[in-house]
């Protein structure tokens, strides 16, 4: 046995610099000179700013992020988002390119803009690293902002920026290129010729988006990326680094054992971020009046349910069964409209005609009770189970597979089946159906659903508008199935009740 010196320092921990010379070493923290318009936010800021700046800069950036997030929730197309965001960016968070000033990156105006961008990003990182949910949303919104700015950058600066990042991209040689030319051409959509493109070979993990869409050629774990797909790679790189950094920040956060100058500001910031999401609030969709029971669902479904829930209901009645995600989506909706747990269990029991009591109790009942927060972990019970799914959640979830029926009909049905189903539920107006086709073609599923709502409640809406009992905010775009139900229900009640409303 070789005796190891107990004092030997692990090579990783050994300081490479002689302590005497340490003061002359290049510091890792330094004032940044912001040579590029874009920033991948690797190095945290170290200079001093005032508390007012701290708060103001963060609020300005937060406004932008909230708007970006709102655009994605409303399912706006990239072009619409761009026209909406550009003026806001100009106002709150301008970021000019080097060419916009005669003295280039040295111009103090550019420097200030870039400093603000840099600092505000890091302030928000502090504010949004506390919980998993905030981190995810922050990373998403920041990524969208970065992507948006990257696309608008001019080509030369883009290249300079990318070169400064030291990415691990291996160019594909000419010989290999001609060898796999056919595959490259057929796997990369919109490509004319091979000559004018530079190709890079990267690990496929770097371009998951392209892999998922099957718009890239893969060979033995390497993806062959054309130069113009840099966007996707850079964005992936940006997100990856940001997520990693947020994770680290969250762990360091408890050590920000700070007086009460920054903490209140940070807390305030993270609270304000919540407002943008179409969150489900307590009582949403729940209506007073006669209690809803298992036996009244059939009638309500026909009259007031949005198309996604009608579709589930019809399928349930047809097959006497729904698959797991369909059950979950429907159960949560029913919970949202105020169906009690007992009634809900009764409803499913009656609906699953082919199952015996034993089967029902062992395979399905737990599920329902879990969704209502009756069983399960502490968090689940305290939170009263899951919240009903919003349109965004339903649209964003994975496509229904074979035999599955959950999801949004506007998105997941083929157009012909959708129109057929709409007609079967009583929407026969040609103009409306044409509008729906158009909306679906443009992937504006919300608009299509709201269009149908407006068409089916034409008279009632007209009436409440005329007598002024409902303001415009009461008739805002519907982004939650339970809102659809509630609004529909209230409108019908109102027209039924004679003049006392």
């Amino acid at each position: 046995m070789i005796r190891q010196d107990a004092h030997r320092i692990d090579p990783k921990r050994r300081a490479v610099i002689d302590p005497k010379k340490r003061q002359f070493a290049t510091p890792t923290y330094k004032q940044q000179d912001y040579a590029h318009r874009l920033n991948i936010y690797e190095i945290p800021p170290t200079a001093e700013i005032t508390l007012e700046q701290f708060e103001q800069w963060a609020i300005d950036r937060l406004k932008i992020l909230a708007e970006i997030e709102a655009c994605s929730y409303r399912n706006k197309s990239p072009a619409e988002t761009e026209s909406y965001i550009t003026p806001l960016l100009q106002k709150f968070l301008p970021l000019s390119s080097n060419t916009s000033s005669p003295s280039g990156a040295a111009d103090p105006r550019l420097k200030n803009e870039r400093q603000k961008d840099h600092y505000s990003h890091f302030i928000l990182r502090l504010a949004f690293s506390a919980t998993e949910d905030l981190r995810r949303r922050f990373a998403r919104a920041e990524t969208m902002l970065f992507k948006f700015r990257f696309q608008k950058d001019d080509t030369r600066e883009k290249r300079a920026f990318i070169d400064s990042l030291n990415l691990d991209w291996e160019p594909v040689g000419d010989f290999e290129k001609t060898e796999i030319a056919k595959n490259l051409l057929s796997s990369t959509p919109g490509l004319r010729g091979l000559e004018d493109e530079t190709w890079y070979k990267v690990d496929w993990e770097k371009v998951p988006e392209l892999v998922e869409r099957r718009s890239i050629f893969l060979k033995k774990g390497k993806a062959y990326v054309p130069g113009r797909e840099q966007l996707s790679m850079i964005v992936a790189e940006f997100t990856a680094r940001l997520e990693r950094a947020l994770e680290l920040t969250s762990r360091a956060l408890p050590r920000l054992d700070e007086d009460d100058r920054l903490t209140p500001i940070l807390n305030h910031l993270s609270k304000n971020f919540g407002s943008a999401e179409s969150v489900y609030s307590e009582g949403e969709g729940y209506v007073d009046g006669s209690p809803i029971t298992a036996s009244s669902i059939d009638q309500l479904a026909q009259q007031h349910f949005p198309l996604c829930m009608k579709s589930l209901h019809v399928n349930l009645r047809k097959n006497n069964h729904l698959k797991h995600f369909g059950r979950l989506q429907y159960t949560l909706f029913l919970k949202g409209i105020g169906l009690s747990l007992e009634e809900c269990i009764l409803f499913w029991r009656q609906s699953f005609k082919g199952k015996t009591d034993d089967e029902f109790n062992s395979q399905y009942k737990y599920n329902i009770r879990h969704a209502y927060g009756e069983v399960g972990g502490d968090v689940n019970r305290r939170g009263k189970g899951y919240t009903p799914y919003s349109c965004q959640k339903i649209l964003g979830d994975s496509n229904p597979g074979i035999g599955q029926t959950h999801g949004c009909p506007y998105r997941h049905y083929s157009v012909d089946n959708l129109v057929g189903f709409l007609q079967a539920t009583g929407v026969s107006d040609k103009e409306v159906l044409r509008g729906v086709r158009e909306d679906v073609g443009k992937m504006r599923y919300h608009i299509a659903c709201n269009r149908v709502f407006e068409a089916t409640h034409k008279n009632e809406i007209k009436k409440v508008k005329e007598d002024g009992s409902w303001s415009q905010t009461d008739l805002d775009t519907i982004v939650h199935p339970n809102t659809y139900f509630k609004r529909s229900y209230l409108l019908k009640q109102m027209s039924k009740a004679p003049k006392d409303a």
Partner: protein
Amino acid sequence: MPHSVSPGSAQNDDEMPDAPPVETSTETNVRLEDMFNDDDDDDEEFPASGDVKMESPSKEEPPAPTPSGVDPDIMLAFYQRLFPFRYLFQWLNHGIVPTKDFGNREFALTLQNDAYLRYQSYPTADLFRKDILKMNPSRFEIGPVYSTNPRDRKTLRGGQMKPVSKELVFDIDLTDYDDIRTCCVKANICAKCWAFVTMSIKVIDTALREDFGFEHILWVYSGRRGAHAWVCDPRARNLPDERRRAIAGYLEIVRGGSQSGKKVNIKRPLHPHIVRSLELLKHDFARTTLGDQDTFESAEQAERLLSLLPDKTLNESLRRKWDSSPDRASTSKWADIDSLAKTGKSSTLNPATLRDAKQDIVLEYTYPRLDAEVSKKMIHLLKSPFVIHPGTGRICVPIDPRNAENFDPLSVPTVMSLLAEIDEYDAKHPAGTAEADIPDVEGSAMNGSDIKGGRKVQDYEKTSLKPYIDFFRSFIAALIKEERAGKRERDDNGPAVKADPMEF
């Protein structure tokens, strides 16, 4: 039961005083999604009618032996004498010396009374074996490796126990083919529809190897009507969820629910993966869909076929032709499409569109239908190889993808046949009998090793399970070899790494 060594089971209880407390199915940390991931399996687990009849086991009494003859005693005998614990350990541990790869791995046990125990973990192969013998589960599933020991999860604050790695898995199930197979429905299978699984294995295996560069792909028969793939390359095991989703998206071509209409919608030109898959599937389409299944023979299916073709005029003439001869076979119908198109009756028909539509149809009827959700999440649990399917009694044996065509699910050994084979062997080789009857002390955890006093013939070697275990062993050997090479490389690089610039 001649095989169940009953003293053994009693002993085991005493042997492990520090045994973990038994948890029941009301496990609080169970998330809804996790628990019911498999629900589409379970929904049809006990079909009301069919070749393989099963009664739903009732809760209170010990389950009555099912028609497949698997009762708890037989299960126990199987675990004691045949189950390859040691190899399963090596497979998950990626080496001989126990590491976190095995120690922090979640196992989920389904007990005989249908209670479901999650978050079990075992430091070594022996403890793993002991606990399985004690619990005698009807099956168990394998989950991810966590950042800490899953048994300690309650001592940690929420969110601290994170899944860190798991094999990339795929699940193919024949129930997803119900709308295109004509021979059987639900849980039943025959050689004709197993062809769909064979095709899937070929296509997925090729794509994973050629496109993604994975090499260690273990295919396992799921015991009844499907197959699982475990991609064990280190690179695959460490993929985060969104990368898994990317692979699942890449491989998923048949999409859409019951209302989606056309299920294959792909861009032209075809991606090399699809070109290659079409090439692989062309013959299967002719043989299976048109031949064995004769899918388009019924009027209803023929109508569905027509709805996938692009040209109205052509459809009209096809419909007339088929209506006049109701019993026309699928092969002829398929040929009719081209022959009628050639006569040029339809002026609107574009040959390229028709070719594309035909390619889409071939894909819709043969391309693998994956249960993509299984592949997307690291935390998804999947049934372990070599356990018994409680419904059929068959062992979940590995399938050699190079030889997938010759795999016959109906001739996979059942637990009963294996135990009978041991008896038969022992009767023929009386010398070995004495040894084999010794209650198995060191256990099958020591399978195949040289036990003191010369090499003893292991129980599994007496049976038709041997080739499957041998295959599994060679799979593990290749995996461990690569794992070692990888480690050595890292160690070699170690000293060369420059000190962190942050430290000065």
